[in-house]
């Protein structure tokens, strides 16, 4: 699955997603479940809003002092024997990873779940160079077997039902069909166990690098993160440049918020901290961190958009989003779908790369409400809409439309004339006012009908003095 080759034509993709979805799509059910699980965990904390405000402030401080925090990290990493690599973009990151794998003489890389690895599209690249990349997270394993990308940032297979997965395993792994979730997990576990034991290189995504100690923290539920960082000789950790937190205390706070927001757990089953190579000569013998920019510094330079870098990738905004609920993640055409993707993708790559993304939102605000670090997503969507608009040429029809809107609304006299004309057209419309065609609006619903007389006319009638009812 290549994002680079996939057009980000969200509008067209949304249309086809709506036409082809099943009558009861799993992402509709699964988002609803996730929203209610999160709500239950939030309700357990009477001080949720204070915790959220503290986490928001701490994340923002971290983003504002990233250079300093990275300096601390480098010192700890040097001391602890971690090798650091810097990648400006996805291509550099891929090549660095490949050279590490080659130096280790490995033919296979075992991965724990990492959206950043999806962002740099490492799997396809490694395969092209004769190296097998094996996903060990159950959801990731499922989508990999299907030849798909994840459709959600924390629940990669949330667009599938257990029946879908049962059929997939029966077909691809030659096991007997079952749609019992524990049985399916056992099947995946048995298959993956064999892989773990022969692993030479492990690859993880870092949820947070801790500046105070240099630890690389990875959050998982299946323990695969632990296997991937302890069984292989060589570990590659992918770190988004902004995913740094100040201290272990901050990590503890963020971990809880992340767990509750993402899956409605009080805490994930595992929190894995990698400090560096085993000093006693066990595994891992080498730990490499690849710090990846890939557009993040560009966002950082923009004071308004910078807030999006607070994101801890919990996916709560996806679950809460009424658009995501309707269509799932694929129409977005990028590794990060939903509200966070609709902001992060155009902010990272420039709004030209995803021109529909900022507009595919009713601006309902459910995303901001669900965000554990209070990212003002609707405000950022509006900022991107403005950026998109500024790219339009002087002759763009949309520009003309709003110019006319301004002219009509800028004068009550013109407004009266324009509405009188539209009302006239509607009332003589063949078949009646309800048959009037308004582009976009009437494709799927009937139009509103102009009142015979506007509020102003009726108010004037009932009030002797047109300026106002001084006389009653």
């Amino acid at each position, binding site marked *: 699955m290549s994002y680079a080759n996939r057009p980000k034509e969200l509008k067209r993709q949304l249309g086809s997603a709506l036409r082809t979805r099943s009558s009861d799509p799993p992402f509709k059910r699964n988002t609803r479940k996730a929203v209610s699980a999160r709500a239950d965990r939030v309700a357990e904390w009477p001080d949720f809003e204070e915790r959220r405000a503290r986490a928001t402030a701490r994340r923002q401080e971290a983003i504002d002092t990233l250079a300093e925090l990275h300096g601390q990290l480098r010192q700890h990493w040097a001391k602890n024997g971690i090798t650091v690599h810097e990648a400006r973009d996805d291509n550099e990151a891929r090549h660095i990873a490949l050279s590490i794998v080659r130096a280790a003489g490995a033919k296979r890389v075992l991965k724990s779940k990492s959206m950043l690895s999806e962002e740099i599209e490492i799997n396809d690249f490694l395969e092209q160079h004769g190296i097998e990349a094996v996903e060990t997270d159950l959801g990731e394993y499922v989508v990999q077997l299907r030849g798909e990308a994840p459709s959600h940032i924390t629940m990669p297979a949330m667009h599938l039902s257990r029946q879908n997965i049962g059929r997939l395993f029966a077909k691809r792994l030659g096991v007997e069909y079952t749609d019992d979730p524990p049985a399916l997990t056992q099947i995946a576990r048995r298959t993956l166990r064999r892989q773990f034991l022969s692993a030479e290189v492990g690859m993880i995504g870092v949820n947070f690098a801790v500046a105070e100690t240099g630890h690389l923290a990875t959050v998982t539920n299946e323990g695969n993160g632990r296997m991937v960082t302890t069984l292989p000789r060589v570990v590659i950790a992918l770190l988004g440049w902004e995913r740094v937190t100040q201290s272990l205390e901050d990590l503890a706070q963020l971990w809880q918020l992340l767990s509750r927001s993402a899956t409605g757990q009080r805490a994930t089953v595992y929190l894995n901290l990698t400090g560096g190579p085993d000093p006693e000569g066990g595994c891992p013998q080498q730990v490499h961190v690849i710090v990846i920019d890939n557009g993040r510094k560009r966002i950082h330079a923009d004071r308004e958009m910078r807030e999006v870098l607070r994101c801890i990738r919990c996916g709560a905004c996806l679950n809460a989003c009424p658009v995501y609920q*309707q269509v799932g993640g694929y129409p977005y055409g990028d590794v990060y779908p939903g509200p966070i993707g609709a902001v992060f993708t155009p902010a990272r790559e420039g709004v030209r790369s995803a021109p529909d993304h*900022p*507009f595919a939102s*009713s601006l309902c*605000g*459910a995303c901001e409400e669900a965000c554990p670090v209070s990212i003002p997503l609707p405000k950022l969507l509006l900022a991107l809409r403005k950026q998109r608009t500024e790219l339009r040429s002087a002759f763009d029809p949309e520009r003309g439309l709003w110019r006319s809107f301004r002219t009509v*609304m800028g004068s009550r006299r013109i407004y009266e004339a324009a509405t009188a004309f539209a009302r006239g057209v509607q009332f003589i419309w063949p078949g009646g006012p309800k048959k009037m065609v308004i582009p976009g*609006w009437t494709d799927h619903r009937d139009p509103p009908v102009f009142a015979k007389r506007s509020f102003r006319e009726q108010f004037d009638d009932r009030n002797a003095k047109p300026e*106002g009812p001084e006389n009653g």
Partner: protein
Amino acid sequence: MAATPGRVHLFIPCFVDQFFPETGLATVQLLRRQGLEVVYEREQTCCGQPAFNSGFHRDAAHLAKRFLRLFRDAEAVVAPSASCVAMVRRHYGELGLQGEDASTWESLRTRIWELSEFLVDVLGVKQVPGAFPHRVAYHPSCHGLRELGILKQPLSLLRSMKGIDVVELNDQERCCGFGGTFAAKFSALSVAMGEDKLEAIEKSGASYVTATDDSCLMHLAGIISRRSLPIRTLHYARILAGESPEP
């Protein structure tokens, strides 16, 4: 609670003026019942929200300045539309207003209210006379709920009427799919969201759906009409003003 003004200026948003004048008339009636003098500035049109939400800030700013000049001397401005009030109160600040416009906004934003906010939070109205013997689903519009914090005010007023059965919807805080120009730009998606809302309304057994915003209701009514569903849309001001439902 602010000092009670004796005179209020109406802001009747453009689409209410043209499509839903009854909502405006109901607003006048509800305000007069409180002994207030109601003033309607005849030059008013639109607050500029559609242009702002489409990214055309300069066009929106032009209309915002016009709005501020028309209403600058009003003691209080009341509108039967949460979304338009949210535009003035919250988003005018993002338009880069300068000098006098900026100071007019800083002051006016504290004097503009959505109708139910004004009735309950400013005037302290607790009881509305009259009856509405129907089951009514209340849809909290997103801008009312999340940008102005409106939920209890219209509910308390509606529930004070005789015979009314106001039900809360399943997932009531979920967007109906209107979203301004979103409704036309992403029409199929907007309607899919609306259909889910209508399904929740049908399940509630309500024969009416009401809201603080005729815009959400206009979108839902369009789907209801296309599908011939047995649900009616009615702005809450019209219910409170005692508009008798059609037979």
